[in-house]
């Protein structure tokens, strides 16, 4: 017997949350990998079938901890589809603002985790600290730091507080001034140049068929982003680019795409685009109501039918299939999380051949969030 078995997780610095990778290893090389999940299963989809349409708003942000707002947005969009509600313009802009702030904070977490796996521990300390300024903004806007329960079917729960946009501008200026430091520490670091290119490669021609989405797909050279291919909120009015391999601007193009290097550089460039989007929102946000005049939310009856809504989360396509039978509660909700494919069939296929030391950085570069796998 040449192989030995290695368990990475469920509590281990090399996993992206409470999940486990079961590896079979020959010497230093991974020969087979299997993902085991279930440590975070809380039965959200079942719970949603037994709560009213309104009560679910407070439940669903918990499906993805690093970026909870996408859940609120897709749920609201699906309910609006069934109800045939067109939300006010101002609400669309506020939603785009919340989703971009969530993307920024999730990317800061993803880059932190990734840097840790290649031994650059200063990055996590600084980026988690910087992320707190975004959480401060959320606290001022919604009263909560992590689970905001702010985006609501029909609009958002309340309007922006006084002076919020000024404070947002300050935080954006601060974050932008920090990018140079992130680059010195990670993105222009020799360790990153030596270790990340051509590691953990997803075959480009298979990427779409394997269900790869989000930054991981763009790192393969496809400029696909739900904000462009199936636009929502205020994104059709906003001007931004889709960073993808090999259009890396000032960053060197190392490796051949679809690798850890491209995936992380794409995330770094997306943060710049998020700031660009947020600055446009500050300038263009229209006056008007922040929500529709809603009927009594305790007695909502949503017309029977099927609706699917999707957004671009920091990890990829995030969608809800919501089915109503005309009652006071959803009949069935199916959550399509991006990690479902990245964390199971993609990593199981690309892990064989990796060095053990590269396994953690590959897993982190895919930015897997286990709670959206098992819900």
């Amino acid at each position, binding site marked *: 017997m040449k192989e030995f078995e290695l368990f990475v997780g469920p509590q281990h610095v090399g996993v992206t949350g409470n999940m486990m990778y079961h590896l079979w290893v020959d010497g230093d090389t991974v020969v087979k990998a299997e993902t085991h*999940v279930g440590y975070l299963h809380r039965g959200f989809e079942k719970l949603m*079938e037994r709560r009213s349409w309104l009560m679910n708003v407070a439940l669903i942000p918990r499906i993805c901890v690093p970026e909870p707002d996408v859940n609120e947005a897709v749920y609201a*969009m699906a309910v609006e589809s069934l109800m045939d509600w067109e939300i006010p313009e101002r609400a669309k802009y506020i939603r785009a603002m919340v989703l971009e702030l969530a993307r920024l904070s999730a990317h800061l977490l993803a880059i932190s985790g990734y840097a840790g796996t290649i031994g650059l521990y200063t990055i996590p300390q600084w980026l988690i600290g910087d992320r707190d300024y975004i959480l401060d903004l959320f606290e001022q806007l919604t009263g909560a730091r992590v689970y905001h329960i702010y985006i609501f079917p029909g609009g958002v729960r309340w309007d922006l507080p006084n002076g919020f946009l000024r404070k947002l501008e300050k935080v954006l200026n601060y974050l932008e001034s920090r990018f140079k430091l992130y680059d010195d520490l990670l993105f222009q670091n020799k360790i990153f140049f030596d270790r990340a290119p051509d590691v953990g490669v997803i075959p480009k021609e298979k990427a779409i068929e394997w269900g790869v989405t989000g930054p991981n797909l763009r790192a393969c050279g496809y400029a696909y982003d739900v904000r462009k*291919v199936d636009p929502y909120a205020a994104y059709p009015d906003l001007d931004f680019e889709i960073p993808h391999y090999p259009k890396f601007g000032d960053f060197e193009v190392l490796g051949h795409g679809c690798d850890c290097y491209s995936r992380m550089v794409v995330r770094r460039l997306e943060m710049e685009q998020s700031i660009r989007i947020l600055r446009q929102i500050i300038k263009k946000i229209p006056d008007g109501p922040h929500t529709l005049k809603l009927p009594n939310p305790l007695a909502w009856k949503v017309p029977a039918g099927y609706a699917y809504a999707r957004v671009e989360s920091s990890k990829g396509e995030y969608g809800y299939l919501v089915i109503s039978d005309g009652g006071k509660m959803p009949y*069935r909700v199916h959550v399509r999380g991006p990690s*479902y*494919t990245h964390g199971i*069939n993609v990593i199981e296929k690309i892990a064989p051949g990796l060095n053990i030391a590269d396994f953690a950085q590959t897993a982190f570069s895919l930015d897997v969030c286990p709670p959206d796998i098992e819900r």
Partner: protein
Amino acid sequence: MNAVGIFKELGIEYEEMKVKGNKDPRYRAKVDPEKLEDIILKFKNNGFRHFVALSCVDWIKEGNMELIYHLFSYDNLEDVFLSIYLPRDQPKYKSLRHLFPQIETYEREIHEMFGVEFEGNDRLGEFILEDWEDMPPMRKDFDTEKYAKEKYGSVPLVEEGGEKE
């Protein structure tokens, strides 16, 4: 070819779903389980290369299990939802994991949560749940309260957030 063209060529009736928020059209069609594989292949060869999700719905009153195969085309920017209905008492279908590899994972979950058998998938077994002996928990007739009472001897008190009996 776009989705409407394919549906017309195959002679399948379809309906358009309501969309607010997103912009792309979504089409839903009920298809014959026997023909599903060929239909998915037809869509796949016409640009629908992104398999978004496989969802299962338990229609307990009608006695059906609905499986929804959801495809998206980056070329035409359209969504297609293909539904098949299986009898609820012994739901059984063939595995389609050779078409898109992530179907394997969805089949594992649906087997565990709804009890649908997929012939040809050798990884059906424990996936998310552990030591589960009761009926598949996402089925509509699974009584969570009864399960909690039998398994743990009680349900949460009213003052702890439980409901009145």
